């Protein structure tokens, strides 16, 4: 995950930027004048905006070794080194690209969810992702990607009364 780790100063600047935009929005919230209210709808958002700005400043001025040190400790605590001969998921060498592919796949799944319907979109998503991530048993992939969406669709729509989109399928 080191590719996605930024220095605490960069993060502090990003948070401060967000806080400023948020404050701008908070100052544009209309006041409530119909009756007298002790706290206006914009009061808390404004307070939160300033608080976030203050916290971003605190993060910015934190000593570098403190912020980095903690990041490093956390990383060693959670990351387990892979065995050299163990097969990892995915196909690309660059983790950033790999995650981008996965994110695009998830976005395509959501985009197709209502259009193609739950069963078709889910089956295509499971099958393509499992294949891309390198699952070798293709028959199991096909069976999983067909049975799970069907079972989930029937269970949710018939059993629990939750209507999932059906797309072009007649049921």
């Amino acid at each position, binding site marked *: *995950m080191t*590719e*996605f*780790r*930024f220095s605490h100063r960069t*993060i502090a600047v990003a948070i401060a930027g967000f806080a400023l935009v948020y404050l701008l929005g908070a100052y544009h*919230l*209309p006041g*409530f004048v119909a009756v007298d*209210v*002790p*706290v206006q*709808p914009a009061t*808390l*958002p404004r307070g*939160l905006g300033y*608080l*976030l700005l203050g*916290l971003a400043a605190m993060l910015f001025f*934190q000593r570098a070794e*403190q912020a980095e040190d*903690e990041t490093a*400790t*956390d*990383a060693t605590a*959670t*990351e*387990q*080194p*892979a065995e050299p001969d163990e097969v*990892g*998921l*995915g196909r690309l060498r660059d983790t950033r690209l*790999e*995650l981008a592919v*996965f*994110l695009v796949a*998830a976005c395509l*799944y*959501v985009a197709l*969810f*209502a259009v193609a319907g*739950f069963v078709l979109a889910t089956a295509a*998503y*499971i099958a393509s*992702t*499992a294949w891309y*991530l*390198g*699952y070798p048993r293709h028959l*199991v*992939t096909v069976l*999983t990607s067909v049975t*799970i*969406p069907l079972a*989930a669709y029937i269970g949710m729509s018939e059993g*629990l009364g*939750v*209507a*999932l989109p059906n797309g072009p399928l007649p049921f």
Partner: protein
Amino acid sequence: MDTLTQLVSGFSVALSPENLLFVFVGVLAGTIIGILPGLGPMTAIALMIPVAFGMDPTTAIIMLAGVYYGAVFGGSTSSILLNAPGIAGTVATSFDGYPMARDGRAGKALAVAAIASFVGGTVGVVGLMLIAPTLSKVAVSFGPAEYFGLMVLGLTAVVSLAGKNVTKGLISAVVGVIVALVGIDSATGTLRFTFDRPELYEGIDFLIVALGVFALAEVFVLLSRRGHGGAQGGVTSLRLSKREVRAMTPPALRGSVLGFFTGVLPGAGATVASFLSYSTEKRIASDGDTFGTGNIKGVAAPEAGNNGAAIGSFVPLLTLGVPGSGTTAILLGALLVLGVRPGPMMLEQHPGVFWGVVASMYIGSIVLLILNLPLIPLFAKVLNTPKAVLLPLVVVFCVMGVYGLSFSVFDLWLLIGFGVLGFLMRANSFPAAPLILGLILGGLMERNMRQALQISGGDWSVFVTKPIPAVLLALAAASLLPTVVGLIRRRRARADRGWEVPAA
């Protein structure tokens, strides 16, 4: 003695073979429904009401109590195994439950959850029996100022959930409150940060954020590590050593009592109870710094807390006829349909029904333990699924849960957005738990604060002149002290080390 006799008669009704069969069915159905994200106890009970129609009222209530317990436990199961807390009450369970699963101790984590739930349920039922009428009077005296105090006390848990860098924890919590404020302001009807999107008028649901920053972010993290380091199957022993039982017993008991009293307050419920139990335990435990890395105390406390609270929420329902949570509101509806009217007269006019309900909750709790302990190895098998298949399935699981909640594709985009945010937070050591806490308590805190000020005519002293809010706020301030002292000590120690290094 009278109480005991009536309870025995309650048990004699509840223990018939037919009732036992239905409590079994209820617990099983509740567990299965509860595992699905977004479908908590409320939905589970609502779904089972049609099944309860036409049944004998006692049998129906017994079954619904089983559904309630089962659904709460089901929520914990997905929290522990997939880091996907389906309901707010089980978020705190995932803090240590998922790391335990990651260490190959999923079976133990689920066993601790089941046993702690049972302890919470048992303590809750005893509390319900003994002090229900007295407690209900205190609960009614809770107004907005008192709730504000309680929410502030709940929010102080942020510092114990923040990890090593309190600033990052506070930033997370503030972002959580910011997310909570999106939507129509309930006090004035003003639209806040909705960007003219009708989908945002009702705010951003907790489930979207929780599944995004926990489950979806975990999928991204696993992928960035090429599938290494996630929850491991295989080692799923349920057997707890004597040392583990000794370690989990006091947190479970404390969590149960804390949970019960929190649950009695209408609106506070299982979520606040589980967070409070977790943070209290983290503060007082000698190994508090290992919380979040798979400490069984961190599973036992919130689980006992949320189950204690589930029973506690029955106090206002049964003694006053006032449902304190969504779940008890649905149960009230079910009871009314079945011809049972809870309220102040219930204990006097229909003691049989009251004690039947109490006994049935107790039986539900026992059946949950008997049914779920053998099922745990089966649940834990989920972790044996190859990662290449499990990761897309978790995404599907999240998408299904969020879509079933609102039927809105817009919410699915939000889910992905929060997944990316959760991943970036994880990569940069920002804790996700304070964000959820801020999201859940922030909105409630603002609403209660404004109501209290409306009632007091804008007088802010209402929070310190009324005894209960004053005590709660003082408790909140006191609970922050150890952290502040700890921070100062750590800073001093670091400064000392800083001097030593150049000298060496």
